[in-house]
């Protein structure tokens, strides 16, 4: 191979590396599904108007038990129709909040979705093989899930954050379904 061809190869290589690095450097928040689209999907294309759950002292205390810190906020927005509720909640994995959409029906978690992931690691929790473990889980009397959730090595804090949010959504749903009477 002559020198000129080799030079062309090197120019192409550096262009390739440049193009490879550009998107890497610019990578930021990963939006897997917008909250709006999650709600549309949760209620088969027709989400109800939002409702508000005000946190009572007891509910705040239970939320603190689950999160291991106080819940940020005095009220929580939710969407409820026919005993099925949807929640968009956030919890910090390591440094940044993970936004998760959760659907609860008959005191069981139907499913959860990672909507926005902002951390630099632990994104594996968005995959179906992990989130499917939460399907049909319930809240025990001690506010833990009735089923063990297998972790993912290297994503321990994200797994912990998602588990906390699953418990929180089940706790909140219990509250609103009691009020709703469904």
């Amino acid at each position, binding site marked *: *191979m002559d020198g000129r061809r*080799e030079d062309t*190869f*090197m120019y192409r*290589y550096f262009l390739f590396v440049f193009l*490879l*690095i550009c*998107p*890497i*450097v*610019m*990578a930021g928040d*990963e939006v897997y599904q*917008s*909250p*709006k689209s*999650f*709600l549309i999907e949760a209620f088969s294309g027709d989400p109800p*108007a*939002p*409702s*508000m759950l005000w946190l009572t002292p007891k509910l705040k205390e239970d939320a603190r038990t689950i999160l291991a810190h106080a819940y*940020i*906020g*005095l*009220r*929580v*927005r939710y969407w409820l129709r026919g005993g099925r509720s949807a929640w*968009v909640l*956030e919890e910090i994995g390591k440094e940044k909040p993970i*936004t998760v959409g959760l659907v609860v029906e008959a005191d069981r978690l139907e499913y959860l979705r990672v909507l926005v992931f902002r951390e*630099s690691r632990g*994104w594996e929790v968005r995959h179906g093989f992990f989130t499917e473990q939460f399907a049909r889980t319930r809240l025990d009397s001690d506010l833990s899930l009735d089923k063990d959730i297998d972790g993912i090595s290297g994503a321990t804090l994200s797994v912990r954050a998602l588990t906390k949010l699953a418990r929180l959504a089940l706790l909140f749903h219990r509250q609103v379904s009691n009020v709703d009477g469904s």
Partner: protein
Amino acid sequence: MSTGHSHRWASVLYSLHRRLGAIAAVFVLLLSVSGVALNHTDSLALARKEINWRPLMDYYGLHQPMAISYTAGESRVVQIGEGCWVNDISLECQGSLVGVLEVGVLLTAAFQDHILLLTKRGEIVERIGSESGISMPIDGLGRDAQGAIRVRSAAGEWVGDSELLVWTPTAPVRAVHWSKPSSYTGENPQTATVSFSPVGLPLERILLDLHSGRIFGTYGPWLMDLAALMMALLAISGVWIRLRQRRQQRRRRRRSVS
């Protein structure tokens, strides 16, 4: 394998080895220098050395904070970096503050990618995000002639109900009083001391991020995996070339003896 075929293979391999060597050189230098330094973290006191180089600080998102202040009724909300003060009571906040309005006994503080409903003592009542239907980023918060709260973004305007629970898309109108920033002189010494103190990046963190490739973002470690693969290929092609050369030398020596 015929001699011609073998020569062609050797030529390809030599060429590949030379190119891989040039390509991998950058990564070898990067990994070896950062690796040696990280092996002596304690003796070099890397964790205690801070780098304040502005472009690097900007890249890590550590900008020199600027104070943004809004006044609503008797209350004032100040943002400096990721810290906010509601009537001098601190709370964490993210994104740029774009407006503050008083709504009854509460305050509405709009940031680029969410709205905080706050008490005047700085307690967060609710964090309203894109699940409300508002398209982010928000660039304005105002009150219309009917007293309703309006939010503006590049995608349009939304009007909130009395509880700020339901946000409805609405046509822009002229008679809206948009919240505007007020001057802030940093009279609260606690605010000024906490927020303006210079923060550097530990050298250890930079070297760790360089060594793992994380400095290049989410896919940086994959880039380093690619570099490792290149080095493995270099090792294999290097050994193969050396063995081939020795075989040729032996052949030449045998020919010269005979």
